[in-house]
Every structure is written in C-alpha cells, then in structure tokens.
C-alpha cells in the first residue's frame, strides 16, 4: 500500500508558522544561503521538524536564565518527547536591540540546572550566536538525518479534500505533522490506514515501531462513554 517516493535532491525542513515573525532570518537563510526547501506549516508542537524523527526547538539563552520559564519549557519538551524520537534544542544568544548596550550574560545556577536536566533527559543541545548560525545548524542536522535515511520526503501541503484528511490525521494524539503528511501521501484513504497492520503503518508513515503501535491502538480503540470527562453537554472541543 506504500507509494515509493523518489529521494529528494535537497533535504526539506518544516518550520512552524510562528517562526515567520520570531526567526525570519533563520528561514530566509535556510532558503537563500543553504538552498533547502522550507515549508511553513502550523506545527504547534515544535519550531522546526528536520526529519521523520527529529524535532528542533529554538530557545533564547535568556529563557533558560530564570525559573519563570521552567514549566513552559518542560511542558513543551515533554509533549515533544511523546511525538518525536529525537529532540534537539538550539540555545540562541539574545539579540541586542538597537540602542541597547550589550548585556552581560550572567550565568545563573538555574541555567546550569536546566542544562544538566536536558543532558540527563537525552535532549541534544546546540549553541548558536545568531539566527544565521541557527540556520547553519539546522542545515547540518537535516543533512545528517538525510544521510541516516530519515529525511522528510514529502513536503507538499495537500489541497482540497486532502486538507480535510490531513486535519483528521493531525487530531490523532502524538502524531507529528510529518507523519500526518506521510499518511496522506502513502495511503489512499483513512479506511486504508485504519485497516493497516502495525508494520504497514510504520513503513507508510515512517514511524518507529512503538509509535506505529500507538497509532494502531488508537484507531481500534473501543470507545467507552464512562471515560469521557464529565461535563459532556458543555462543548469543549
């Protein structure tokens, strides 16, 4: 049931739409300097998807400095770990705004604690001094994943009816945007996906075995009204 896809000449990267405003130089640099195909999509979970298994989040050095952001970051990364096999964080030096004298970076104990926790959690950490350098790092990561045969191969945003189907796949918990796109391209219909075996799902969506098992379980999950959260009548979608 899997349609073979021609290996693409240059690797492709999916960028979250919020990055258009927060990292415009990263995206334009990826396209113009490194010649990569960058597709901007509403990813929601991560800032960039670099391969079928690797997600990259861009964080500013200042965000790791104070305990205020800790919860937000840990929730975000925990969610990512449910969706992706590999996670990378690029710690970018904050931009000095015009008129602002270069701020001295004060290393806090909290900062070291966050780094230690990330290391222990197996999150890969890269450091970048500016958006251009971040783009170069993303390119290196994409090439590395390309060599390991994990590169994203379908980047085209689907049209018309396929859009609705993509939106259906995206509502499945712990399924990445890349995997949802793969499902759209590899399977003729949702019914074909629902009737597929675990190995067929893993091959078609390019998922790891446990992830394919989770998807398989979800599609066959027997709905139990008892387990719905209580206020049923009040619409929470």
């Amino acid at each position: 049931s899997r349609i073979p896809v021609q290996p693409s000449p240059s690797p492709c990267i999916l960028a979250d739409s919020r990055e258009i405003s927060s990292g415009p130089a990263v995206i334009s640099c990826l396209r113009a300097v490194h010649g990569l195909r960058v597709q901007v999509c509403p990813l929601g979970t991560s800032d960039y998807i670099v391969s079928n298994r690797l997600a990259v989040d861009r964080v500013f050095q200042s965000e790791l400095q104070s305990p205020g952001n800790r919860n937000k970051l840990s929730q975000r990364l925990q969610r990512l770990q449910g969706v992706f096999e590999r996670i990378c964080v690029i710690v970018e030096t904050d931009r000095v705004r015009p008129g602002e004298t270069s701020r001295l970076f004060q290393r806090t104990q909290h900062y070291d604690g966050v780094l230690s926790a990330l290391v222990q959690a197996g999150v890969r950490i890269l450091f970048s001094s500016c958006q251009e350098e971040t783009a170069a790092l993303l390119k290196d990561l994409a090439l590395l994943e390309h060599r390991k045969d994990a590169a994203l191969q379908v980047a085209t945003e689907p049209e018309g009816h396929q859009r609705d189907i993509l939106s259906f796949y995206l509502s499945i918990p712990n399924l990445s945007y890349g995997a949802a796109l793969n499902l759209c391209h590899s399977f003729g219909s949702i019914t074909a996906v629902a009737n597929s075996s675990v190995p067929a799902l893993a091959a078609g969506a390019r998922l790891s075995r446990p992830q394919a098992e989770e998807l398989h379980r979800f599609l066959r999950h027997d709905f139990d009204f008892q387990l719905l959260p209580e206020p049923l009548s009040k619409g929470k979608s």
Partner: protein
Amino acid sequence: PVTAGSIVVPYGHVIGNEKWRGSEVAQRLQGKVRLIFEDGLGLVDFHLSNRTCILLISEADLVAGDEFKRRLVRFRNASSLRGIVIVEKTQISDQYYPGVQKLAVLELGMVLLPVANQEEASQLIIQLVSFCVREQSRERGSNPFVRRQRGPPAEPAVLRAVQRIPAVGKTKALLLLQHFGSIQRLCNASVCQLEQVVGQTVAQQIYTF
C-alpha cells in the same frame, strides 16, 4: 595512554584526574562535592558517575590547534561512557566554537557545554553531579524534561478526531461512536449502516470521506 574504560565512582563522589590537583576548578569543587584525585584517568578529566564523565577543553587547548580533536575522537572510539565535553568559550576562543560543536555534537554524538571560565565550569559540574546522583538514586521523576508514561484516556481524543469528519459535530460524533465503537469500524461502515445513525446526506459525506 587511552584509559577510557569504566571506573567505579563511589556514590555522590567525583573522581578527578591528578593533573587538576590545585587548579581553580578543583578548588571550587572541593567542599561542594566529594572530590578524589586519581592517577591514570587518561583522556578523562572528571568521572561523575559510573557512566558519565567530563572532558574539559581549555581556551588554550582550543587556540593551540587540533590536539583536542584527536583527544575527543580517541575518547569516542575507546569508550562507551557518556562523555560531556565542557569547553572554555571566551572572546579569544569564540571563533573556534562552531567547529568544535560540529565535531563533538553532530559527528561524535557527544554533549558539549560552553562555559566562560573555570569558575563557571565548576558551577556547571556541581549541577551535573547533582543530576547524576538523582539518576542513581532513581528519583527519575524529579527531572522536569523526562516524560512520564501513560497519557490520559484516549476517549476525548477519539471524539475530537471523529469531529474532524466534514459535517460531523459533537452530537453526531457521539452518536456514531455509540454505534460503531472505534474509528476502524466507523471507517468500514457501509452507507446503509451509516444512514441508520445519521441522515442520508451526512451518511454519504462520511462515506466519501
């Protein structure tokens, strides 16, 4: 001498390479962690636990040339320990950082953390040690970045997914799930079966979807 094999590190201790005795890092670590010096650690500067160790690269190492690169590669080839590379990133050594990062992180798959000086290195080591201790004592839940297993029940998510089918809102989604039970069975339902639950038009729409 490549000694990169495992070393037994007593609980909560750090084993330091003899060559660091009397250095600023060592002085700052003493009192904060239980530091023992040992000869013949070879490539490794500090052992934090039985499986984690640190290789320290100074500003001078970076500027001096490629010797430290050979050291990293030799370590990687000789050892299965988790190697954390701490590198002194200063105004002078800044320009070499991207190259080191590419080698250590992207090519060798090691962890690389920059510090500005030996004082910062010692602070970072103290934090790393405290996480190694927690890891050994199996307080794994204390790491905010490690995902806890077992998510919430799938029901709300299944309901949300069914609502993505065109023309199906909350009420119809519940009705459909009541009759068919799972997404797979809903997918395999015929138009006739669907018509018994929803109207003709909607049944057709669901079927085509």
